């Protein structure tokens, strides 16, 4: 559904952009919860909200898991899953396909939705029998095969499974055969161990609990260097790094309790294998971290690595650019000036000045650094009056960057036909030359506009102003440096 389509259905709709990072983070959080219950946890690729979780060894009667059977295991999972979604469902089966079907349908495919329990356990060896009554739609297959089976009167997985393998292969080839195997509960997919190897990490305790980040930073630098050295020796670079602080608060005071730790993660735009920029990213993160208690220990964990490729060099060396160094430099800028200062221009094709370009917060740092139009202030640089490219030089460049006032500021102008004198921010200004008007109107299907634009040269040689007049009066919309 397009945004316009959605608005047509609900004019007051609030539209939020899809955020992969948020989704991934949520999946990672949920995965971490499940790992606490079972070591085999695999988020299902392409299906956010579904996990294959290993349940081997939890069979009824087994005491290997502290006396818990499958039911209590599932109940434990359900508690964790409900953090993800209040109506989460758990199913235990021999195969992934049966488990997945059971989360949809409950104990049987005839069960009414209202009767379904959030927990379904299919007895061991019972997958094929369970699946037999499932609708054929459960099985993945192409449309042609689905149509043909439907026409043949094959409506359930069981009916399909009743066909012979050779007949199926004879008619639908390997793909058909693979589907037929699924119908028999022969599913090769299995949950895998969430993380078998301890990720590279460095853990250090502070000599004394620290109330500020200074001592932490002191430890982080050598830790980062160690990690980088270790990974470079394996031709790997760091793609994501987690910093875990152990806090000295009341939650860790009880003898049986575990220490209170807080973890935050740095996801790098591109893998890094140099300590300096990595340290700058860590510094950026830690400098924004407000401590609720003293820190007693710090742990740096490499969450994600990538093959180490490419040469690295100096940020200011114009012969080549080092993305990592640029990222680090920008991170320092963020640390110094605030989180939203690094932005990049986004061009949009349109006549309304304020809508035809905008700044978006820079996340993919290098491309912003590489852009000659990078500015460190709010405002848009764009092709201003697109129809009059000579009047106002087309693209915002380093020479004529346009500073947009958002919102535009009201001014008083003496002559309605062509501005000669104006009063802005309490100051009178003379205009020695003005070019215009350029009539621009549009966006009538949204909040339309209709304006006459002038580009004016001031007497103080302080750049060219862009003024416009609309029904509400005169406005300054920005100026060129």
């Amino acid at each position, binding site marked *: 559904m397009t945004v316009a389509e959605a608005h047509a259905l609900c004019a007051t709709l609030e539209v939020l952009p899809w955020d992969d990072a948020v989704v991934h983070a949520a999946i990672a959080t949920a995965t971490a919860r499940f790992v606490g219950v079972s070591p085999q946890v695999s988020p299902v690729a392409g299906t956010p909200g579904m996990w294959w979780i290993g349940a081997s060894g939890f069979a009824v009667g087994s005491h290997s898991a502290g006396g818990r059977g499958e039911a209590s295991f599932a109940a434990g999972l359900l508690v964790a899953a409900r953090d993800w979604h209040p109506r989460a469902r758990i199913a235990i089966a021999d195969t992934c396909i049966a488990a997945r079907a059971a989360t949809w349908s409950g104990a049987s495919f005839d069960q009414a939705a209202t009767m379904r329990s959030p927990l379904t356990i299919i007895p061991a060896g019972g997958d094929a029998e369970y699946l037999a009554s499932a609708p054929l739609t459960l099985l993945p297959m192409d449309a042609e095969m689905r149509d043909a089976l439907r*026409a043949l009167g094959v409506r359930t997985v069981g009916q399909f499974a009743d066909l012979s393998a050779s007949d199926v292969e004879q008619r639908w080839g390997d793909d058909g055969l693979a589907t037929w195997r699924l119908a028999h509960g022969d599913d090769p997919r299995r949950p895998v161990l969430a993380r078998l190897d301890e990720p590279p990490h460095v853990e250090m305790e502070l000599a004394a609990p620290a109330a500020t980040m200074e001592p932490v930073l002191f430890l982080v630098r050598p830790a980062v260097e160690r990690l980088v050295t270790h990974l470079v020796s394996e031709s790997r670079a760091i793609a994501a790094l987690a910093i875990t602080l152990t806090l000295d608060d009341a939650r860790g005071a009880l003898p049986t309790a575990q220490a209170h730790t807080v973890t935050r993660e740095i996801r790098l735009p591109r893998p890094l294998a140099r300590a300096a920029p990595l340290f700058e990213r860590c510094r950026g993160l830690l400098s924004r971290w407000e401590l609720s208690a003293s820190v007693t220990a710090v742990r740096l964990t490499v969450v994600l690595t990538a093959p180490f490729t490419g040469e690295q060099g100096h940020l200011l060396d114009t012969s080549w650019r080092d993305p990592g160094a640029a990222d680090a430099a920008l991170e320092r800028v963020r640390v110094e000036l605030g989180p939203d200062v690094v932005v990049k221009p986004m061009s949009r094709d349109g006549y309304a000045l304020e809508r035809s370009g905008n700044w978006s917060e820079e996340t993919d740092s290098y491309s912003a650094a590489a852009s000659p139009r990078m500015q460190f202030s709010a405002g848009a640089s764009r092709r201003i009056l697109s129809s009059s490219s*000579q009047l106002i030089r087309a693209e915002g460049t380093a020479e004529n960057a346009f500073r947009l006032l958002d919102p535009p500021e009201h001014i008083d102008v003496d002559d309605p036909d062509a501005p000669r004198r104006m009063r802005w921010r309490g100051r009178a200004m003379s205009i020695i030359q003005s070019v215009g008007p350029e009539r621009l*109107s549009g966006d009538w299907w949204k909040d339309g506009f209709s304006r006459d634009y002038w580009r004016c040269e001031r007497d103080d040689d302080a750049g060219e102003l862009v003024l416009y007049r609309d029904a509400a009066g005169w406005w300054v919309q920005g100026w060129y440096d």
Partner: protein
Amino acid sequence: MTDNQTSDGRRQTSEYVELHCHSAYSLLDGAALPETLIERAAELGYSALALTDHDELGGVVRFAQAADERGIRAIIGAELTYSAGAPRRIRSSSSQLIRAAGAAENVNPRAERAAEYHIVLLAQDREGYGNLSTLITLGRSKTRGEPCVDLETLARHAKGLFALTGCPRGLVPSLAASGDVDAACDATATLLDIFDRRVAIECWDHGLPEEHRTSQTLIAVARALDIPWVVTNDVHYARARDRMVHDVLACLKHKRTLDDMGTRLRPNAEWYLKSAAQMKRRWQHAPTGITNTLAIAERCQFRMAHVVPTLPAFPLPPGVSPDEYLERLVEQGARERWPENMDGGRTAEHDRQLAHELQVIRTLRLAGFFLIMWDIVRFARRRGILCQGRGSAANSAVCFCLGITAVDPIKLGLLFERFLSEERTEAPDIDVDFAHEEREHVIQYVYEKYGRDHAAMVCEQITWKSRSAVRDAARVLGFSVQQADRLATLADRHSARETAAALRGEAAAFSAGPPGRMKYSAVPSERIPRSSSPLIRAAGAAENVNPAPKAPAENNLLYLAGLDASDKRVQLLADLVGGLHQLPRHRSIHVGGFVLTKEPLATIVPIEPASMKDRTVIQWEKDDLDPMRLVKIDLLGLGMLTLLQKCITYVRKTRGVTVDLAQLDMADQAVFDDMCNADTIGVFQIESRAQMNTLPRLKPRTFYDLVVEVALIRPGPIQGDMVHPYLRRRAGIEPVTYPHPSLEPILKRTLGVPLFQEQGMQVAIVAAGFTPGEADILRKAMGHKRSHERMAAICQKLIEGMKRNGIAEDIALRIYHQINAFADYGFPESHAASFALLVYASAYLKHYYAPEFTAALLNSQPMGFYAPGTIIEDAKRHGVKVRAINVLRSGWDHSLEGRGRRSREERGDPPPSSLLPPPSVRLGLRLVKGLGSKAREIFEVARSDGPFTSVEDFVQRTRFDRRSLRHLAMAGAFDGFLKTEPDLKKRRSALWEVLDAARGDAGPLAPRSNSRSARSAAEHVNPRAERAAENTSERQGARLPAMSPGELTEADYRMTGVSLNGHPMAHLRALLAPNGVLTTAQIARARDGDRVAVAGLVICRQRPGTAKGFVFLTLEDEVGLVNVVITPQRFERQALLISTTPLLLVRGVLQIEQRVVNVRAERFRGLQAELGAEYAKSHDFH
């Protein structure tokens, strides 16, 4: 300053003439109709206005007509696209100017690469117009949709044309914009050479500084070369607010939404028709450009009236004139038509009538035209193509004698002046129907005989109607296709304007009717010139305005469509839909109109290739032809003639009987019995719901009753409230009266109710003292949508004439109203008579040769009112045996399988045909969905090699794709190969075999040999699974579940749209009957006023424009049909359900009147059943 005389004698002055103006005929780049531009120009006090559409003269006739009415001089021109050699390197600023100032002209990157430019050409004289038309023809003759001429061609046809350098896409402006003044001067000099200094530099100002600067350069160029420069506003719409519609059109051209258009849209709304004062104010610094427009307008003296086309000469024997030759042919024909010494033979009356007609033809110099038509009909007859003249030509005894028409006008007392008179300014209209599948031969014969330079088909400008306007507007605003479709279904009205009103929730919209045919949308009151007379105004108020039902408080349509009315885009939808009203959308080919000229046709109107192969069309529509005195011949395709042709052939083949349509017993009461019982599915003209509702009331018993029946159910008589009075009088419920005693001779045969156009004319002659020619002008004026002034004048004359003859004013008004109502939308009696012949012939064949008729009807599809499923159900009810598709017996077409005839013939003792059992209809493969013409070719070739022996044999020999084979299997086409299988298992077994046979290489488990050893060798791949199925692998076919009867029906409908295995309703009957749902047969036995419930497959949905918003459904169940009537309010409430649900349960009150059964619906419910109903075709809102 120029002045001009307006039609009302007012003297008009103007200080500015717009010389560059686009109408909506600049497709997707103009947002105003020519009439709208003229109307606005008149408001602004223009004395002249140019029309300069892009490579197009399609709008010039209506532009010139509207201008004449408003007293504005119409300057005819076009903005031509030409290529100027190698691409020039033009600096970027120029292309930016083009992009911004002309953004909506949608600069085509390809065009820029090929160095294509625009130039405005204005016709100074007739030669210039001819050259302009020729240039457009040449430009459009190459690549369809990308017109362009080269400079040399332009130079060859420059005479009589005045050139303006054009918009920013012109060569000179683009060079000037790039700052290359020298090159701009060179380019201008080239144009000066080509046009012999008839060139002016064009400047514009739309509030864009770069335009301003370019204009300065252009003025400098003009001064340097000492040529005039002019100002234009490059108009693309009439008023500034029309910019929205122009933006929408630009979006449609780019196939983008408004949000995605960005700077592809024009930067502001300045491209509208501005007043002289506005233009002068804007150009006050350089007024020369304004005054120069007047001088150029003065030079352009060409008017459309200067175009006088002539017909091509018909090749004649030496020394014989066309009149003499025609006379000889007519004489010859008269002897054949009216043999002497026979009952109904030739009399003095015949001679008098022929002499009169020939005299009129001689006076009007139309003998050549009649000879051309005779020649075309002669060609068709020689080729065995069934044809018959229709329309007013059947009023002519000459046409009857020439064999063009089949109705004897003298016998029926038809009025020749309806066809031709000396007062008529336009050529007569001769329409000939040909068997539609053979018509292309006739069309190509005409092209070949007269040459493509002298013959072309007439175009039809497709305009935005209700649904298309809603869909396109919604799409452009960013709505989804589903939302747009849903809204289009709900908002569907006659026209885009009425739909817009409905979207706004305006009450008037609820009186509107269905989609389509705009010409029926005007309610009678709209056709009365309200300003013409207080009498007429009073009449309109008193008689013609149908009070509209009250609108619901909230905007139902938006609410029903699930849209949020507070969203701005939703609010704008109505304005955009209304803005698209009647704008041309694309060009199509007229159903059969041809124009022929003696001079090269391209000098009269541009010709362009049509989308259909081997067809060329002119840029004018049929309504443009009469004003231009272009003779149109209509070579129409009529499915019924194809049907009759096929049916006669089948009857000859199956029964050895030759049916001669000219010798049918026209008084066979058994045939009329069928019609009285409304048993007319498949019968020409009287098979629609409305006709079938009328037949039991009218009870036709003679041929003339059929003429009346055909003419009665038409928008004209319905709007004129003539149907019910006629039926009541015929039933004896109401006495026969006449508006005035003097009208009794004219109206007697239609029981005092005028039904035919000729009667209207005769009433005008008798009651108002009109001459026959004046009466015809009255008819034309009443029906002519573009000429309100003319109509007002003649109507006034009619009423005054009646008053003079002593007819009271109120009666005169009533007579006027009746004539007015059917002036254009009623049939001429001659036309009704021509059609009535076909009605009777088809009814006759259906009655006596039902199997052949059914096969012919099915093989002539698509045609008529009903889908094959309904036709077959009807045939079965008539005892026709219909056999299923079977590749062993079926051909591509449906065929007839006789029993016994061959064997008796072989014995040399053929029995009388009446003793032979009727043949059965074998359904053909053409019914199977997904099989096209290519499949037909393959199938027929494969079949010619001998009968198929097995499914595998069929698969191997045809090599159809898997999908087609699956469809054939599921349609039961392979059942013949599986004789031992139970019927309910055959299709699945066939499909099982098809899937096997159609697969390519075998896999490890299933080698093609399918040998057990190979299989066992492969079983190690998945032993567990194989073990599970071990016992079943040998008998898989048998393990497939049998189909249920419902599944069989579903498969039939899904694959063929018809079922011989039970109607979908038959499967639901057991569920419905206990709930009181009756069959259509039970309904027919119920009593008037009973509350009933009926369910069925919706085979027809109608919302006629004449029915004040009422909706009519036809439901089909396993035993018959029933009609359902829905009030506008009920329909609005459940429009989506009613419009889209295939199986509907309706509860309501039964209405039975004179054996006509209707259910007045109150409640509706969709039936959900997998019985294939969704695959059945319904005839909706046509």
